[in-house]
């Protein structure tokens, strides 16, 4: 009887697990490395190239300062500086997102093929990511940089997703056309 209950519960749990995996869908294909490197040459992304945001949002040192009453003033100063840096990083991510969106529209103007579904998906990612970034920015201003550290770290996910999608779009252009796209993009950005 216990064995049967065990199988029933595990069967349902496994079913829920597979359902969750199927709802997430197959992982999106990563564009080939040459398209990725060409893309990183053409478009400069400041926020997403920031190497270690976890370190920025880690409150260990702040807690050490706070544990000593003599260092409370330093802790406050430390928190303020981290808050400013975190806000700067989130602003850079927002600006990256807008740059990526502009570059995507530019590629489509240049004649790169894209489906309507992909465009809707891009719009969804941009809108949701901008909303999340604004919410994260507000939370950093109100509650400080350490309270929602996990959500803040995840804020870059939308930018990464968008940059992969845009690199994939660039990958549809023959390699010989990348130099011209780079020139035209630099001209349009100037």
């Amino acid at each position, binding site marked *: *009887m216990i*064995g*049967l*209950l*065990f*199988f*029933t519960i*595990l*069967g*349902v749990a*496994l*079913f829920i*697990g*597979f*359902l969750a*995996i*199927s709802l997430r869908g*197959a*992982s999106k*294909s*990563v564009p080939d490395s040459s398209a990725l490197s060409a893309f990183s040459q053409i478009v400069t992304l400041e926020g997403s190239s920031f190497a270690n945001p976890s370190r920025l949002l880690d409150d260990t040192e702040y807690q050490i300062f706070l544990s000593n009453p003599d260092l409370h003033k330093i802790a406050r100063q430390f928190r303020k500086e981290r808050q400013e840096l975190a806000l700067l990083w989130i602003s850079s991510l927002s600006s990256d997102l807008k740059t990526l969106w502009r570059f995507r529209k530019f590629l489509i103007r240049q004649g790169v093929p894209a489906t309507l579904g992909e465009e809707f998906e891009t719009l969804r990612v941009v809108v949701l990511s901008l909303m999340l970034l604004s919410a994260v920015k507000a939370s950093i201003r109100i509650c400080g940089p350490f309270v929602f550290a996990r959500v803040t770290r995840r804020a870059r996910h939308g930018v990464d997703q968008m940059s992969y999608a845009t690199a994939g779009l660039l990958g549809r252009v023959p390699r010989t056309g990348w130099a011209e796209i780079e020139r035209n993009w630099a001209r349009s950005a100037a």
Partner: protein
Amino acid sequence: MCLVGRLLFKGLWRPYGYFFSYAVYVLAGTIAIFGTIMFFPGGYSTMYWVIESLSIALRFLVVWEVYRHTFPRGSAPHRVLSRTFAVVVTGLALVALGSFWSYATHPALYSIHAALDRSCGFAQAVMILGMLFAARYYGIQLGRNAWGIAVGLGVYASIATANNAVIDLAHSFLPYWTILSPLSFVAMLAVWTWAVWVEAPNPQMAIGTSPELDAEFGRWVEGWNRTRSTVRRVTNP
């Protein structure tokens, strides 16, 4: 028939040989069952359960198909995971065998097919889920083909596990089982057909190592061993 046709038409029967064998078996089994109903109606139930029981065992071929496409021989994840996979498979086989054996100790539970289906279904679902998690952990991209095959089988095997346990728990569940079981099987076939509708294999993974890399690694290991013996000499003079 549509699934087998699609595999043949797209030429996917070559790379997905084990999966194709299982699909052909399902098709042949269905035809055999229909043939038995038509010509030997008395032997229908025996034929049905024999074909079904064999089908349960053959589903392991599909599990192996997912494994060999997700972690191809010679790739780095294969080298890391092959032993773990072997241990997990042995463990799950023992669990499945044990739970199937324990069926005989409960005289109130009479469905040998249900016992076999839930034991093997559980092992298959856990293997598939483990592979999907390992692939996610190592950042391995799964193409639509392998992903669809894995998820389709996983969903079906997990439903079969729960379903076959519940009918032995409460026999009143039998009418639902007669609907759920074939429906989930048809759903699995539909997912598989969708998965192989287009050719979308997993992206290529780096296989093997170059001789230069091997030599470099050898030099590194030599240097590291020398460092360790120096440290040992300094700490234990």
